[in-house]
């Protein structure tokens, strides 16, 4: 895998999307506009996702204000080892994603970009694997809200309702992120040099960073509450 000089020279032609030519701009300038548009677009999307998750976090906040003692009892039942390990995995994947994004913007760093994308996917998959093991343990401990729920305090079921909802929605987002990064790797394999200056790398990596941020907020909600004392 390498990007020859001709590939690098044709960056604008490779990434530009129709109908750029109707703007009557030179290729490089049109590409710069499209790149800025892609970044702006993903940030608009992230802002809307902030509100989506924000509603969930607000639900947690309101329920915790009313049932603080029961929420502390419930949070003590989550596995802090898995939670902390997964946080470290996601933070590390965020580093790889950021490196991939920055490396893709520079000549001669396609190999680094590809390696970092690969590491991002592997760390994302490792997160999913740990989460799967944790889910199995949670089910075995009867922490799924319902008739056979393990804890006797009634509002602990509210906590675990939130736990399953928030972690599964986060896992869906992470799966989409993994699919996006795998697609980028596949595109590079099919068309060597694709990753260089591709706005798609930055967009996918910004999405990955957002998914990271959501977990950063979920971690104290689900794993750290009720441990003191």
């Amino acid at each position: 895998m390498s990007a020859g000089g001709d590939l690098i020279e044709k960056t604008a032609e490779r990434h530009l999307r129709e109908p750029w030519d109707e703007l009557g701009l030179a290729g490089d300038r049109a590409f710069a506009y499209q790149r800025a548009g892609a970044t702006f677009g993903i940030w608009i999307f992230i802002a809307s996702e902030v509100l989506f998750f924000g509603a969930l976090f607000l639900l947690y906040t309101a329920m915790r204000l009313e049932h603080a003692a029961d929420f502390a009892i419930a949070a003590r039942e989550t596995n802090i080892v898995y939670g902390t390990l997964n946080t470290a995995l996601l933070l590390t994947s965020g580093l790889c994603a950021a490196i991939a994004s920055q490396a893709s913007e520079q000549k001669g760093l396609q190999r680094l970009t590809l390696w970092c994308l690969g590491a991002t996917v592997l760390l994302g998959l490792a997160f999913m694997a740990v989460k799967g093991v944790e889910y199995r343990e949670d089910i075995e401990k009867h922490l799924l809200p319902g008739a056979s729920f393990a804890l006797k305090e009634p509002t602990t079921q509210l906590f675990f309702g939130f736990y399953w909802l928030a972690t599964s929605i986060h896992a869906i987002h992470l799966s989409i992120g993994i699919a996006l990064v795998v697609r980028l790797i596949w595109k590079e394999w099919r068309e060597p040099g694709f990753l260089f200056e591709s706005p798609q790398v930055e967009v996918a990596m910004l999405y990955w960073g957002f998914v990271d941020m959501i977990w950063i907020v979920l971690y104290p909600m689900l794993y750290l509450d009720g441990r003191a004392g």
Partner: protein
Amino acid sequence: MSERSRTSIGRIWRRGLIVWVLLLAFLALSLFAAYAAPASWAAPINFGIAATQAALVALLLMRLDRADALVRLAAACGLFWLAILFALTLTDTLSRLANS
């Protein structure tokens, strides 16, 4: 690999690794605070640390620090509407709790 590429790689990694070490240090700190801090202080400390970590990711890994004004405005709008969502709902919830 050219000398210039090596310099670029060094610069990209150095910056990224500093942020990563900071994020992991904050993770360790929040884990410690969850067990060691007084119960009433644990939640504010841990959510404060989470907010700091999220800000580090947004500014230094997602590069809001070098983004243009329009992108920063989009990010700020998300936080602004989130603040309205929380403020209006919690005004109601907290006032009910205070008077119950």
